[in-house]
């Protein structure tokens, strides 16, 4: 595929992720920590997040489906997820977690379920878009090109 087309695709993808609020400035901070000596840093950290978040979301799902809901346990998981999503700049996920914690505090099952749904959706979106972004990045690198930096 044409290198400049790949680079444009990458830039557009990345820009839209910021415009849609899926990513925030913290992601840029991660990109700045990546260099020739640590070329896979962002990919590694985001992959860690995929695993971590995936696990936490599964836990949350099963905790919410218990006969007696343990809001403290759920809150602890959400707090963890909020922290890791903030660390990589996954803004929308982080924001859902904020609301989720409020519902936990209020012991509100409906609020919690609603947040759970939002979380599932946001995580799927996030994972899919970031995976696409990394794929395009890999293609650029494989073509010997440089990955465009976002302004």
């Amino acid at each position, binding site marked *: 595929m044409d290198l400049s087309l790949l680079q444009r695709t990458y830039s557009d993808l990345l820009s839209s992720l910021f415009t849609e609020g899926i990513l925030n400035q*913290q992601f840029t901070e991660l990109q*700045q*920590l990546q260099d020739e000596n640590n070329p896979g840093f962002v990919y590694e*950290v985001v992959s*860690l997040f995929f695993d*971590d978040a995936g696990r936490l979301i599964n836990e949350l799902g099963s905790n919410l489906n218990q006969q007696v809901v343990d809001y403290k346990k759920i809150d602890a998981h959400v*707090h963890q997820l909020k922290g890791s999503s903030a660390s990589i*700049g996954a803004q929308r996920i982080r924001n859902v977690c904020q609301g989720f914690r409020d519902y936990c505090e209020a012991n509100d099952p409906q609020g919690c379920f609603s947040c759970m749904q939002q979380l599932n959706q946001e995580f799927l979106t996030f994972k899919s878009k970031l995976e696409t972004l990394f794929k395009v990045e890999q293609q650029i690198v494989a073509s010997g090109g440089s990955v465009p930096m976002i302004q």
Partner: protein
Amino acid sequence: MAAVATQPQFHVLAVDDSVLDRKLIERLLKTSSYQVTTVDSGSKALEFLGLQDENSEDAVSFSSHNQEVEVNLIITDYCMPGMTGYDLLKKVKESSSLRDIPVVIMSSENIPSRINRCMEEGADEFFLKPVQLSDVSRLKPHILKKSTKCEDLNQNKSGTTISSSTNNISGNR
């Protein structure tokens, strides 16, 4: 004639139960030219520092090995299961061998009472997560201040009054 010495690398011990945050803080510190050791709990941190944690069930004594390892700064997450960052801070400040090591607390929550509590217990800085490069650039003065303090103490052995300067408290965001 002073010889040009290689800049010594300062060694930071980073404590965080989140694997993602450990990776992040490690990269932040290494990018800023620190040597880094990361551990996932307060009790492991104490083991590394050569202190036994009497509450830890699987405490292994590393003291003979780790007396060689110098730690110039400890940076720890506040919220951790078991021993919190605050508990770790207290244990460090209570230890005669470790109390001079600057301690920085990290937290995702901006709770003034928490911040004050930590500063009162002797923390040198409080960082709000996510920690950024600009935060890490604030670590050096604390490490250097400790070295200067040692020099001052040596010069003032004659008994003149030493006026202690207050630590720079900046944890507001």
